[in-house]
């Protein structure tokens, strides 16, 4: 292996790891914290493991050939094609099989390059406009390579799984980082371009080697076939793809429910202090509205699924099933260290400096805890105008019940439960339960309330189902959302609208029907009473 390149890649890996460390130390403001999770930290090690395996899989000759080949390829792609599709057209389907191994390596190399770019971040800072365009091209190419690799590789190469896993996340991640921080992205693309320019002179020298390798492609294809025979299933690959495309998938379900469940995250468990790793996010990270950012336009999203849907608007290559598939978190065989979170607010019991520190279980817990405990309650219930919440899910939960406290005391206090009211009147002298204004409507009202509860229950379950369906069938729903809302779609918002609609409109109708029903009911009960007297 070319020592220089090797050094570069190593330094890239180091820088990557360093960057992760930095991020976990809250270095970058507004950084997507979900990606700052263990997977990334694992990645460094993964990369080191898989990379050396390759030489052993191919003979030395191939090895010596393939490094330059990679450089050529990347240059071929980067240099002449302002159009994204060119990169795809460059690919000869017949060469796909034979070039598969190259593809892997190429991706590796591209990744390394980008990493080295990151490594040398801040050294170049001019020609911003050009660089933006370049950056877009590079990212598009990279993504198209990945997609191409995925779509053509199909059920190939069990060994590819590892490489894919190890490479793709980094690429996607880097892309997203680039998107997230514009200045950083510019720097990155500049750096990239610089590397490309540096390597252009070598390109002609490598052309021959490419051909040579093509001749030797038979070997490669045989190898591929052999591996193929081992029966690598497509869905396994899909799993890989899913895991590649983005981390934080697992946090989404929690995020969707986004209720209070995990504020007291670690309360039940008694983890000995040293048995887990304590992470602490900065306040800005916790309060960041978006955690996923478009690499192209920089738009932020709460969900990676929404981001993927948004990406579709940037080109056809994002519309493939693979690009839209839900990323799958890789199941590592290594025993991962348990992670717990600390609240950045010093003095809080959830802060790691606290004597009786109680860690929070998940990032969501951190989020909810921080908002509830250390932020202003900015969401006011629009119905009662008194209750305030800092977590919007709390407000929604409240709104479900607000105004529906049917048990009223003479002092004006309302209760949602009869036993609470009775406890209240038993406690306070002179307080009495208040009857409904019109006694004839009492049954009607109670029925109506029950009815509303039923409706709410339905809404709730619908909500829930809907939310879960957005998670499970991301494609369907999100595609729809993107088509309609041009990327502004979020299941949360949708739920909210939907809920509001169901909540507001059927109510008058319900009252009407119920009151008529109660009238009928009272009539019939009178009748019963008469006949019963006999």
């Amino acid at each position, binding site marked *: 292996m070319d020592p220089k390149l090797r050094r570069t890649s190593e330094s890239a890996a180091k820088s990557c790891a360093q960057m992760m460390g930095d991020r976990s130390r809250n270095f970058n403001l507004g950084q997507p914290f979900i990606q700052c999770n263990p997977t990334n930290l694992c990645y460094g090690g993964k990369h080191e493991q898989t990379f050396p395996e390759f030489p052993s899989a191919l003979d030395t000759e191939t090895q010596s050939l393939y490094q330059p080949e990679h450089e050529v390829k990347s240059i071929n792609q980067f240099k002449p094609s302002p159009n994204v599709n060119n990169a795809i057209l460059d690919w000869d389907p017949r060469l796909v099989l034979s070039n598969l191994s190259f593809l892997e390596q190429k991706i590796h190399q591209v990744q390394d390059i980008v990493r080295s770019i990151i490594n040398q971040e801040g050294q170049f800072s001019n020609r911003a406009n050009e660089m933006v365009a370049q950056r877009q091209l590079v990212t598009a190419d990279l993504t198209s390579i990945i997609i191409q690799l995925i779509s053509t590789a199909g059920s190939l190469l069990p060994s590819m799984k590892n490489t894919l896993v190890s490479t793709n996340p980094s690429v996607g991640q880097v892309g997203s980082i680039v998107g997230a921080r514009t200045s950083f992205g510019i720097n990155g693309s500049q750096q990239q371009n610089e590397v490309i320019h540096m390597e252009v002179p070598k390109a002609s020298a490598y052309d021959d080697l490419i051909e040579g390798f093509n001749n030797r492609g038979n070997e490669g294809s045989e190898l591929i076939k052999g591996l193929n025979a081992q029966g690598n299933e497509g869905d396994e690959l899909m799993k890989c793809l899913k895991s590649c495309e983005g981390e934080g998938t697992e946090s989404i379900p929690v995020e969707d429910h986004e209720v209070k469940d995990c504020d007291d995250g670690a309360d039940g468990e008694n983890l000995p202090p040293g048995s887990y790793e304590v992470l602490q996010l900065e306040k800005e990270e916790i309060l960041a509205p978006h955690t996923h950012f478009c690499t192209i336009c920089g738009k932020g999203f709460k969900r990676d699924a929404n981001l993927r849907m948004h990406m579709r608007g940037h080109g056809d290559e994002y519309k493939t099933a693979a690009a839209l598939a839900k990323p799958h978190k890789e199941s590592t065989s290594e025993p991962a260290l348990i992670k717990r979170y600390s609240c950045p607010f010093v003095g809080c019991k959830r802060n790691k400096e606290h004597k009786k520190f109680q860690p929070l279980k998940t990032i969501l817990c951190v989020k909810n805890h921080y908002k509830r405990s250390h932020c202003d309650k900015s969401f006011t219930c629009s119905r009662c105008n008194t209750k305030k919440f800092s977590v919007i899910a709390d407000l929604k939960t409240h709104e479900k019940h607000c105004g529906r406290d049917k048990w009223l005391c003479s002092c004006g206090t309302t209760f949602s439960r*009869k*036993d609470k009211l*009775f406890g209240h*009147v*038993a406690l306070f002298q002179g*307080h*009495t*339960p208040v*009857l409904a204004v019109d*006694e004839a409507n*009492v049954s009607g009202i109670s029925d109506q309330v029950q009815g509303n509860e039923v409706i709410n229950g339905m809404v709730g379950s619908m909500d829930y189902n809907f939310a879960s369906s957005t998670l499970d069938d991301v494609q369907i729903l999100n595609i729809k959302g993107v088509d309609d809302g041009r990327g502004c779609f979020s299941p949360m918002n949708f739920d909210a609208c939907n809920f509001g609609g169901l909540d507001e409109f059927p109510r008058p109708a319900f009252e009407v029907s119920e009151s008529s029903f109660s009238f009928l009911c009272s009539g019939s*009960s*009178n009748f019963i*009473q*008469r006949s*019963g*007297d*006999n």
Partner: protein
Amino acid sequence: MEAIGRSSWSPGALPTLTFDLVSKNSNPYNRLNPRPIKKMRGEAEQQRNPFDSLTEEILFLILDRLGSNPVDKKSFSLVCKSFYAAESRHRRTLAPLRSDLLRRILARYPSIARLDFTLCPRVTDGALAAAADALRSSLRSVDLSRSKAFSSVGLEKLAVNCTSLVEIDLSYSFYLNDGAAAAIGRARNLERLWLAKCRRITDIGIARIALGCPKLRLLCLNECIKLTDLGIELVASKCKMLQSLDLSYLAITEKCLPAILQLPYLEDLSLPECVGVDALSQGCTSLEVLDMSIRQQVFDIATCQHAKCAGLSSITNRSLGLRQMGLTYYIPVTCFLQKLPRLQSIKLSDCEITSTELKAIGTSCLSLKELSFSKCSGITDEDLSFIVSKHRDLLKLDITCCSEITDVSLANITSSCTSLTSLRMESCNLVSKEGFRLIGQRCHLLEELDLTDTDLDNEGLKAVSGCFKLSSLKIGLCMNINDEGLVHVGKCCPKLQVLDLYRCTGITDMGISAIGLGCPVLRMINLAYCSDITDDSLRSLSKCLNLDTLEIRGCPQVSSVGISAIAVGCRQLTKLDVKKCYDINDDGMLSLGRFSQNLRQINLSYCSVTDRGLLALASISCLQNMTILHLKGLTPNGLKNVLWACNGLRKMKLHSSLKSLIPQHILEYTQARGCMFQWSNKPYQAELVPNEIWKQQSRGMPV
């Protein structure tokens, strides 16, 4: 005036009094017709009215001693102005027949303390408001049970205006809701409240009552099925004065029991059919913990089938003052009886009892006064003899349907419990004349004796009539008795008030005439299916001036003549059943309509009465309940007129074939006045069923 003081003031004696006064003072006032008073006013003022010398205190004393019969007081008030005024001021209780005239009535009676609306078919809010305005704080008690047409508005008026209201009965007001309950809750001084079968009242309503009426001592919530533990708990926590609490048929659980059992004055707790209180067993652990100083005296857990022994004992452990215990469909009693030394009454009905339990009863509760084993199986002579030998002070014994009882038991009962006042032994078929002889010989204090459906014969009856204090004698279905025995009853039992001769076919006019002569205070007589009875019997009975209930169903020889005699003689008559007395026709009805102004209930099925007779009945303003099935002479038009005319009717039982023949608006109008229709479609069955066949039929039927 001495005459007044000496007079024995039984209700029937009033005419005598009036005559005394009249003869002494030669006052020509006609007591029945007020008109002469007006005519004579000038004269009376000129020659000083002798009655004016009577002070109001004396008049009040007289009025105090007048019986409950409204006619007496009416007569009294018609004597003269001062009597009238005295009666107006004296009267404390008013039971109007209709509520629309209440305002004027109350103008006459300013100091009514108790208003009884049970006779009114409808009580409007206006009437209640009038009462509230007129009586104000003098009103203490209102009975609105089974009344209709009033609402929370009227109740609220009552509760707010009548500050000393202590008693309201709203039982059977099915339609009352929480609004009415809230209105009641404004009566701060309320002490007794009946809400039986107010099924629409919920916890909110009862909470208003509990919070508004802290002085409640008695609360009956029988079958208020919407109430739950929450409401009852609040009642128990807020009404600390409660002495009596009836929670029958409520869907409550043991959750509210701790609160109830902490009531310091609770004496009477009724929990029959509270399915949730099975409960008592599970509740016992917590009950043990509570410190209870209950002085429960009556504890009724009839048909709490799941009540376990342990739970009961845990309650009764703390209830050392428990006096009475009612246990229906129950259960081993042994385990807790020892702990209740002051228990006075045990009522076990429909139980299977083993001899060990009976032994326990015998040995433990030494001060038992009342013992009831009605319909209990497994009671033998031996057990019963043991018990009565231990409880010599027993006053009341009920061994209804204890079919294994023989003369042996009776010998022991009569020898040990000589102070027995009540003995019920219906259907004890193995008891022979020896047993009856012993009853008559030894139990001289007996006041109530039920020998229905036993093998009583004339000798036995003669022996039984030795109990000269008898006021109630039930010897229905005793086929072996005839006039011979009954004559002895007439001779020896002058205090007899209730006589049941149901299907005693041997009885004829002779026996009844003996009763009529010998039992002047007879109130109720049942001669149903004594088919040999004729008008003569009724003529004899017409001497019983207090007779209010007469059943001569299925006595075909009785005619209008007899009924007329009764109507003229027995002015107190309130219930009359002449079903299948085919000879009774319009003449009888005319006399009833003229004289029996107190008649409330009449059954005329199968009689020969026509429209004319029914219209005559319409003049009885009290008449509330009519059953007229299979009246041949009745036409739809006549019935229509009757329905128009009888404006006090509350219940009318008619054959369903008539339903379509009466105009709908008439029915609606009648219903709006407060009358209920019951439509029967029983087929016409003219001939009487002979006793033997009837007996077989009734035996064959599952009970």
